[in-house]
């Protein structure tokens, strides 16, 4: 039996490296052009006011920023006279946060894809699914990015903890000392504890990934199902660990950027987002490999099943997005509703555009059963879903980091490109390391014959 092995072709390698280099250039551009002091920030703002929409809103803007971050509001209320100075300082912080936020959003987004894929993989293992073993190696390839991606995110958090940026205001002792609410959360929200937690979670996920991969490869050569059963057991245990730690991770790494605001279903919401992006990525990688002549055994029924998951989880994501929104909208409590007011006023296009991309578009495109079997439909929808969920993360981070100074420009696209290049390199490099199909899996036969 000839093992089918993937060889990382040169074109794709070149693409991943050029994405990384271009992305790095974009990020550097962002960091270099960010204002170094308040004077420069003022100049940037006055330049903007000439041509752009900022001028007409400039009075409204100060109002909104006050709602946006309460700590600044307390300050400015006390010292009404120094209001304009504090506003300039605030804008300066936002502008200097901008490249950091672009870096953080992209780093988290690609990490999230591989973590979502890992959850999908573990669910398939724990359920002993019959249709998907043919795709296990693809999933294992994608989850290879989780460890480096997670370390990058934690490293950025570490740099924030060193006060190189002001992404997380609870990391700033000056802010905390003037803010009763954040001070009360100090026991939980402090830099060493958050970093230690993050490392612990990442270690747990990586350990599961390491052993599951090891057992998966060992099962290929084994004569009995010992490794399969081991894999089943650790996958079930991992899922319990995962859903708790994923929730806490989403509070620590995302929700804490608005330390005054909280939502009890936030962990689920982030989970739905990473789950659907992960499944779409599996579909895209599978279709890419198929188009290169690999994975011949994958038929349109497998694609159909991935399509069903993309459709179903997109609806699930919308359900959570709307549940979170409706409860807060209905109760109308000021400290909660400010989260959505900021997004609906300053982020109108990404906020509502995201719903179109993540719900309406996949809903209509993938509703028909036949379309879920057509590669063009899956690829188009997959790309839209992935960009849509990047914007979802963008909407979670940016409003608190840069306020209304957001823009999807060179820095943001550069960040996306850099991490996409890194992601492609690590994922496809991992795919070369083992046979592309887990032929030893006891359910492989069922998966190969699978047809609907």
């Amino acid at each position, binding site marked *: 039996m000839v093992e089918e092995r993937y060889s990382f072709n040169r074109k794709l390698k070149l693409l991943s490296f050029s994405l990384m280099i271009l992305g790095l250039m974009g990020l550097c551009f962002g960091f270099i052009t960010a204002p170094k002091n308040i004077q420069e920030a003022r100049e940037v703002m006055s330049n903007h006011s000439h041509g752009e929409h900022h001028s007409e809103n400039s009075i409204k803007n100060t109002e909104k920023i006050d709602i946006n971050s309460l700590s600044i509001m307390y300050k400015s209320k006390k010292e009404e006279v120094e209001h304009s100075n504090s506003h300039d300082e605030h804008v300066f912080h936002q502008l200097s946060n901008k490249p950091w936020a672009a870096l953080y959003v992209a780093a988290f987004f690609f990490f999230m894809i591989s973590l979502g894929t890992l959850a999908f993989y573990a669910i398939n293992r724990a359920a002993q699914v019959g249709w998907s073993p043919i795709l296990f190696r693809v999933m294992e390839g994608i989850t290879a990015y989780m460890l480096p991606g997670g370390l990058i995110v934690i490293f950025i958090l570490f740099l924030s903890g060193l006060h190189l940026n002001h992404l997380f205001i609870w990391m700033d002792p000056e802010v905390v000392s003037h803010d009763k609410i954040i001070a009360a959360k100090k026991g939980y929200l402090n830099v060493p504890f958050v970093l230690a937690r993050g490392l612990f979670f990442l270690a747990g996920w990586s350990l599961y990934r390491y052993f599951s991969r090891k057992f998966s490869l060992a099962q290929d050569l084994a004569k009995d199902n010992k490794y399969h059963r081991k894999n089943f057991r650790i996958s079930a245990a991992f899922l319990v660990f995962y859903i708790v730690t994923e929730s806490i991770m989403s509070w620590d790494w995302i929700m804490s950027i608005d330390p005054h605001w909280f939502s009890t279903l936030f962990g689920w919401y982030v989970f739905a987002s990473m789950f659907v992006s992960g499944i779409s990525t599996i579909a895209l990688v599978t279709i890419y490999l198929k188009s290169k002549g690999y994975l011949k055994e994958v038929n349109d029924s497998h694609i159909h099943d991935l399509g069903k998951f993309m459709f179903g989880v997109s609806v699930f994501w919308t359900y959570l997005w*709307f549940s979170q*929104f*409706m409860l807060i*909208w*209905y*109760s*109308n409590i000021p400290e909660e509703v400010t989260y959505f007011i900021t997004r609906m006023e300053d982020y109108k296009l990404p906020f509502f555009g995201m719903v179109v991309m993540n719900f309406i578009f996949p809903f209509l495109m993938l*509703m*028909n*059963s036949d379309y879920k079997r057509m590669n063009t439909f899956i690829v188009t929808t997959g790309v839209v879903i992935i960009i849509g969920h990047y914007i979802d993360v963008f909407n979670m981070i940016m409003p608190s980091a840069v306020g209304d100074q957001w823009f999807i420009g060179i820095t943001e696209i550069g960040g996306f490109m850099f991490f996409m290049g890194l992601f492609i390199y690590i994922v496809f490099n991992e795919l070369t390391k083992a046979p592309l199909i887990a032929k030893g899996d006891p359910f492989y036969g069922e998966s190969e014959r699978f047809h609907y």
Partner: protein
Amino acid sequence: MVENNKYIHALYDDDDTLLNAVKVLRENKFGIDEVYTPFPVHGLDKVMGINETRISIMSFIYGCIGFSIAVLMINFIMIEDWPQNIGGKPSFTFFENMPSFVPVLFEMTVYFAAHLMVITFYLRSKLWPFKKSENPLKSTTDDKFLIEIHSNGEDKKIKALLKKTGALEINMHEKEE
């Protein structure tokens, strides 16, 4: 027309043998009148050459009807007939109160799609309460599978073919129209 009332009943006890028998009969161009099974056999519709169901299209249409009725209903109840102040936001417009209507819109859409789909299915399969069952044999609701073939005067050929496919019993049967 005496000949045309004759049917052959072939009995099977396994769904895979049944699927294979249906395939063989179709390959030999014998018309299958009906197949009775105790449970839905996966892939039987494809082997029998039955047209693909169009119930999903109807489901979409029914959903749209349910959605429209929900919009009209909510608009009348909550906005026109007795304007409600929802969540302390006295806007009294449909659009601005829309988030609170979404669950109702969703439920009505699903309700209409599901119920009308079931009713459509009953009508299409000519089923209604107290209808007498058409099963020629009671055991097809338990563990047996039955193929009903229009004989068209080719009894012997069909019977020989059925025997080869592993039928348990082969009977002749006359329908009274």
